[in-house]
């Protein structure tokens, strides 16, 4: 099964984007007739798997570093990288009436601020930048708890274990507006997510179609509806 079945795109997708990718796949299949089979994982894991011969045609990473690296290492097809989404950071605090951002972070009424691990999760790195730019790096340092990824970070907050958390805006789009603060872009580097065509999908028409589809208007609308910005 090394070549994969004809007419199926094998997509490796970062966990935070798994939900959106499902909606995308449905639309894609409707439009093209190609089926999509998704493998969800963390970007680091998907990277390691891709390097070790995983049967993935397309990688939807949560960052730009690893697609670039795959390209450099010859695992991805050069020139196929595309930024398909830009994540927005949100400060989420379901237990606070109205979240205004920096003032809430300076307030004393909370014990734990959850962020994703800056070293492995782009949203974590972004959150760290926000704290630094707000001049809070030292003040909150010992009250930070780190989730392995944004998914866990959200769970820290949802369970009440942490009062505040920097999560992906895409995770809180459905939450009451006042319980989160959409962090201004200026406070952190953009969280760009790139997709890339991997070697096993190099000659797959379906895979090429899927990468094209990601940039299509229909796809952008779906992505935007899930709380991502869509880079040009």
């Amino acid at each position: 099964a090394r070549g994969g079945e004809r007419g199926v795109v094998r997509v490796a997708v970062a966990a935070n984007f798994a939900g959106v990718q499902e909606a995308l796949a449905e639309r894609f299949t409707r439009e093209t007739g190609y089926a999509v089979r998704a493998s969800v994982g963390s970007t680091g894991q998907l990277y390691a798997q891709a390097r070790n011969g995983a049967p993935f045609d397309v990688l939807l990473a949560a960052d730009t570093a690893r697609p670039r690296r795959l390209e450099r290492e010859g695992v991805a097809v050069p020139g196929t990288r595309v930024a398909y989404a830009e994540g927005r950071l949100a400060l989420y605090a379901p237990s606070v009436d109205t979240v205004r951002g920096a003032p809430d972070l300076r307030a004393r009424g909370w014990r734990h601020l959850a962020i994703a691990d800056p070293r492995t999760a782009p949203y974590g790195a972004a959150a760290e930048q926000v704290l630094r730019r707000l001049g809070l790096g030292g003040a909150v340092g010992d009250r930070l708890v780190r989730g392995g990824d944004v998914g866990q970070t959200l769970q820290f907050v949802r369970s009440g274990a942490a009062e505040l958390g920097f999560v992906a805006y895409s995770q809180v789009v459905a939450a009451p507006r006042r319980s989160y603060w959409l962090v201004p872009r200026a406070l952190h580097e953009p969280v760009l997510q790139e997709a890339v065509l991997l070697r096993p999908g190099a000659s797959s028409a379906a895979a090429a179609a899927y990468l094209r589809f990601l940039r299509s208007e229909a796809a952008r609308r779906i992505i935007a509806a899930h709380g991502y910005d869509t880079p040009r």
Partner: protein
Amino acid sequence: MGPLAPSDWQAVLVTLRLATVTTLVLLVVATPLAWWLARTRSWLRAPVEALAGLPLVLPPTVLGFYVLWALGPLGPIGRVWERLGGDRLVFSFRGLVIGSVLYGLPFAVQPLRNAFGAIGERPLEVAATLRASPLDRFLTIALPLARPGILTAATLAFAHTVGEFGVVLMIGGNIPGRTQVVSVAVYNHVEALEYAPAHVLSAGLLAFSFAVLLVVYTLGRRAGAEAP
């Protein structure tokens, strides 16, 4: 089927198959090893025993990472294997089994080894004088007398394989219908904030496993014979 998607059901099937196969393979692999450990006087005993415990100390994803590399087309085992004409080991059910067996080894070896140790020499000596060959003694005396240990090894291995997902996720690649197991599916649901199916799957896992364990522990442990 309620909140569960078809892929969830596929994952259930893959999980059951994986746990069953892994448990059987583990028993087959661990039993002779444990037997040797329980009886040898070689200086190799302690090192080998310690070695068999090592898979536990690496975080599963990390262990998975190394196994993925070793079994993958670039790794020492995978390369040789594929050069010999073997199908790719990773991202297949076979790969999952290899990873799960490796990770489950300590759970199987230790209880078996203790059970064999607890038998003592005497029943085996008696059997030897009744013309039972070493293999015969092993099969007809040692194995039945080691039943509690076998039971424990099997239940720990089974339960652990059901719940494990780090190694499996890494080696299997989480491919629906092939290598996606329930544990990963639950994990994905939780990550995707789909709490309803996560709860249903978790509850199902717990209920099913409880039922299995209950049957095993009820039937498997006949009350021991009373002392006269």
